[in-house]
């Protein structure tokens, strides 16, 4: 393979991981926009998506579609419980307290996962086999197509939801101004719960589509969560296309960095990019700067 073929290969695989980061990042943005919370447990939803799928497939021998639906359902239940038991009861929510609570929640979920499934790394078979598809000189796994397909579908559905349904519009109103939203009769607390439902479901999907590529274990949530957070920051914490592009840019740069520079420093690439963007354009690369309000 010559250099240009290699670069195409890196772009393709970077695009796929980028799509995953985008899904995780969207989960961050949706919760952030409706509650102002940075949910550090988002990565654990991703971990649960992969681990629950693995559990249904290998221990209960369910067919794949049932396992996937089950994974989304269980992760969503965890998301709802988390919101009900840890977020809603806080009497004096300050940003710092919320950060600590969500970190506590992520430690708790990770600990429970370790108890249930142990510390081993588990493999999940690809959804449509492992036979690579040749594209010119580059090759693509069928799982990559699943990733592109599911990510696109989720983005379209969420776009339709936020723009054309009454609940979606109500959530956007809460993001814009919770006080005004509650004045016109929107139940802000219910919207907060909705945002946790959507984010945990999205996170679990990200988790089960990436698991066949990277394997899964109880502690994969930390790094994936942080990368998704990077994607959201690059996209300016938007719950739309900004974060999607943020994820894809991150995935591609990371894959190029790993391929052309050093694979050991792969994770560092993401964070160097993150720092550069924060230093140069802290509002994200797609947004105009807001004027600072006192």
């Amino acid at each position, binding site marked *: 393979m010559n250099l240009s073929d290699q670069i195409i290969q890196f772009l393709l695989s970077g695009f796929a991981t980028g799509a995953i980061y985008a899904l995780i990042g969207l989960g961050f943005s949706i919760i*952030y926009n409706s509650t102002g919370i*940075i949910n550090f447990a988002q990565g654990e939803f991703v971990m649960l998506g992969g681990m629950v799928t693995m559990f249904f497939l290998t221990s209960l021998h369910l067919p794949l579609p049932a396992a996937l639906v089950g994974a989304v359902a269980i992760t969503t239940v965890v998301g709802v419980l988390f919101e009900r038991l*840890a977020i809603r*009861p*806080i*009497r*004096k929510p*300050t*940003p*710092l*307290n919320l*950060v*600590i*609570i969500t*970190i*506590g*929640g*992520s*430690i*708790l*979920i*990770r*600990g*429970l996962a*370790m*108890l249930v499934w142990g510390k081993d790394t588990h493999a999940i078979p690809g959804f449509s086999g492992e036979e690579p598809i040749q594209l010119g000189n580059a090759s693509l796994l069928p799982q990559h197509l699943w990733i592109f397909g599911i990510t696109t579908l989720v983005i379209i559905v969420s776009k339709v939801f936020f723009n054309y349904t009454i609940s979606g519009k109500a959530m956007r109103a809460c993001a814009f101004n919770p006080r005004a939203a509650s004045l016109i009769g929107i139940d802000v607390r219910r919207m907060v719960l909705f945002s946790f439902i959507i984010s945990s479901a999205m996170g679990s999907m990200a988790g089960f589509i990436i698991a066949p590529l990277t394997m899964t274990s109880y502690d994969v949530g*930390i790094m994936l969560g*942080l990368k998704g*957070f*990077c994607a959201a*920051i690059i996209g300016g914490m938007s719950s739309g296309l900004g974060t999607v592009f943020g994820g894809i840019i991150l995935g591609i740069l990371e894959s190029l960095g790993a391929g052309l520079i*050093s694979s*050991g*420093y792969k*994770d*560092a690439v993401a*964070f*160097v990019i*993150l*720092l550069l963007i*924060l*230093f140069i354009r*802290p509002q994200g690369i797609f947004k105009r700067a807001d004027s600072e309000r*006192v």
Partner: protein
Amino acid sequence: MKREPVKYALLVAVALLAPLYFSGGYLMNVLVFVGINTLLVVALNLLLGFAGQISLGHAGFFGLGAYISAILTATHQVNPWLVMLIAALAVSALAFLIGFPVLKLKGHYLAMATLGLGIIIYIFFNEAVDITGGPSGFSGVPNLSIGALVFDDDVKNYYLVWSFTLVVILLAVNLSRSRIGRALRAIHDSEVAARVMGVNVRLLKVQIFALSAFISALAGSLYAHVMTFVAPASFGFHFSVELVTMVIIGGLGSVYGSLLGAALLTLLPEMLRAFQDYDIIIYGLILILATMFMPGGLVRGIPAVLAAILPKKQERG
């Protein structure tokens, strides 16, 4: 009015006498780490509690201090005390330079930038195998010594670490009650208001960041010499989070709270060890419950609990 000196004298007395009670036991070793963690938590509290600037990368500064000390003393045989100073100065210089762009950021952007910084440092520890020994770590760090006195057991290390801790606590208490302390709290409440009052907000934030890094690096050097071994796992994202947790559980903006937070969260895993794999779950639960029911930290929560138990005191007022 004179409560501060009394409080401090009490702390010094307890710290000096503790080994009489604990020496020889396994807790002595834990208390050494309570001292190191207290240094770190006080350092972070200066930034987070006083100036209101979060850092999720302090484990990185701690690690840099530890690695600089470990490498220069073990590989190049430089005087450890000199290295300790060099490490602290170098790390605070780095923090000073990087502080200007980083501390321009606010809220979760600041959290993310410092987190990124910490992770980059952590990846460097893991990947620069030629210099740091990689994931398996770096051993053979000598113990500190003064003349013939070698700090090579728990009791000696305890006094070594705690003499640093007590000095730093004194400095932090004084700093918090000084003009700079008031300026920092003004920044915490409103940067614009602070600027209007003539505080050089940008410079002061960077200076306190550098000071905080200086103390963290110092703690790192002590850690390296106490452990005689350093490995990247001690300096990861998880530890940065743990430090922030200690600050908050102890009480934001309270130096003595830092001591309580560090002590509780250092002792807790040791006490939970009996629960084996359940310990991490209990740890997570305690984090959530403490934040939920004691949002002001132990330093405000304990008096509140006492007031609730002793109803007589409530009636005054």
